[in-house]
């Protein structure tokens, strides 16, 4: 649909044909405009903050620790902690594996905990499929002998078969 027959369509349908030249140009213009607008809004906020903070104290201090004064990188939220709520929600699919010994008794011995969430697509789709493919083609290993004479024989045999097939 090009722009000429747009008039015949009900005016409700504002999408001109997805690939007509005007449609593409309009989409590009809109994307560019909105992108620039967003960039301008962000820049305006950044400039406003810079102007506001000029001449005021901008101090550097420790991260808020709720009274705890010696946080270390080991206390950070890790990637798996960050993802845990969502990973837990998809537990039936993702099957997180956990290992370790929980603390027990009044004087607990050192405890440990480890968890891993292997990629289910990798584990249960790609690996089995490609292992199967590898096993299948492994059976054809005898074809590859590493001797040039044999490969020439394969070539000749293939050409001969093709020739016979064409002649038939």
């Amino acid at each position, binding site marked *: 649909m090009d722009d000429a027959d747009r008039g015949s369509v009900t005016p*409700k*349908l*504002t*999408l001109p044909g997805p690939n007509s030249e005007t449609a593409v140009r309009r989409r590009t213009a*809109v994307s560019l405009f*909105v992108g620039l*607008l*967003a*960039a301008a*809004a*962000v*820049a*305006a*906020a*950044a400039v*406003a*903050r810079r102007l*506001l*903070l000029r001449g*005021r*104290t*901008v*101090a*550097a*201090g*420790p*991260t*808020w*620790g*709720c009274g705890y004064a010696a*946080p270390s*990188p080991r*206390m*950070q*939220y890790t990637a798996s*902690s*960050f*993802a*845990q*709520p*969502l990973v837990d*929600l998809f537990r039936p699919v993702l099957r997180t594996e956990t290992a370790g010994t929980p603390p027990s008794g009044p004087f607990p011995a050192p405890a440990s905990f480890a968890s891993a969430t292997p990629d289910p697509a990798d584990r249960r789709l790609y690996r089995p499929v490609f292992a199967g493919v590898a096993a299948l083609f492994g059976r054809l290993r005898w074809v590859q002998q590493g001797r040039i004479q044999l490969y020439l024989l394969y070539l000749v045999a293939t050409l001969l078969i093709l020739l016979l097939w064409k002649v038939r």
Partner: protein
Amino acid sequence: MDAAPVLRYLLAFALAPLLGGVITKTKAFFAGRTGAPLLQGYFDLAKLLRKGTVYSTTTSWVFRAGPVVTVGAVAVALALVPMGGTPAPLAFPGDFLLLAYLFALARFFTIAAALDTGSAFEGMGASREAQFSALAEPGLVLCFLALTRSAGDLSLSVSLGALSFAAWRSHAAVLALVAAALFIVFLAENARIPVDDPTTHLELTMIHEVMVLDHGGPDLALVEAASWLKLWVLGALVVGVAVPVRTGIPALDGGVFLAAMLLLGVAVGVVESAMARLRLLRVPQLLVASGVLAALATALISG
């Protein structure tokens, strides 16, 4: 270009903190207190804008980009929302997807800024925010899908503008489902009860508040402004679906819209006074419910 949409945009920009004031005032009324003044949101912004700031030594440019990008993205999102029948200043086919992704952008930078502080509290808040917003987003987009399908147009301004009370008579089920789903998303995305409690003072129970703990001064003002604007954007969508008054007189429609927004603030205040927040483990069920309602609406409109 018509000036009315731009005027409404500016008015919404100016009035957004008032909506928060209405909510707190309603809650104060139910609690038998006088409560903070209606204009407390403006006072807070003015106070924060006068201050200096402290940056954690752990943080980098990511932390400084957080509030700026968040407020920029939400300010553009506000330009996509039609108010009271008048089209939005920015309207084009597919703009509802941009709206969803602008929110996602704002959220991404808020989360990144929270993680940048290295604080375990803020990491926890970021993690919860990521989970809940991932579950709220399908509901929002499916609501948009139902609305755009019912209007036969891919722009938010046209599809919300096409709504009227006649549409409520013919498509009551669909619109009721969409309005309910949008209201749940509205509460969840704006960190209100029953998903998050904006007045809690214990870090471990917070979601949104804990993510912005390390922001101060003008940065906190930007964060606050962004959350007022977001409250207004999603509120305008709820009101646009629930109260589609079309008298034909733009000023009257606008006035009704404004009154409905303030009523929505009262409704949020009533919800927050009447119920406690859900247990964190229950929140996903509520969010999935909003997605299901929206999916049902989409199915009804397609069938």
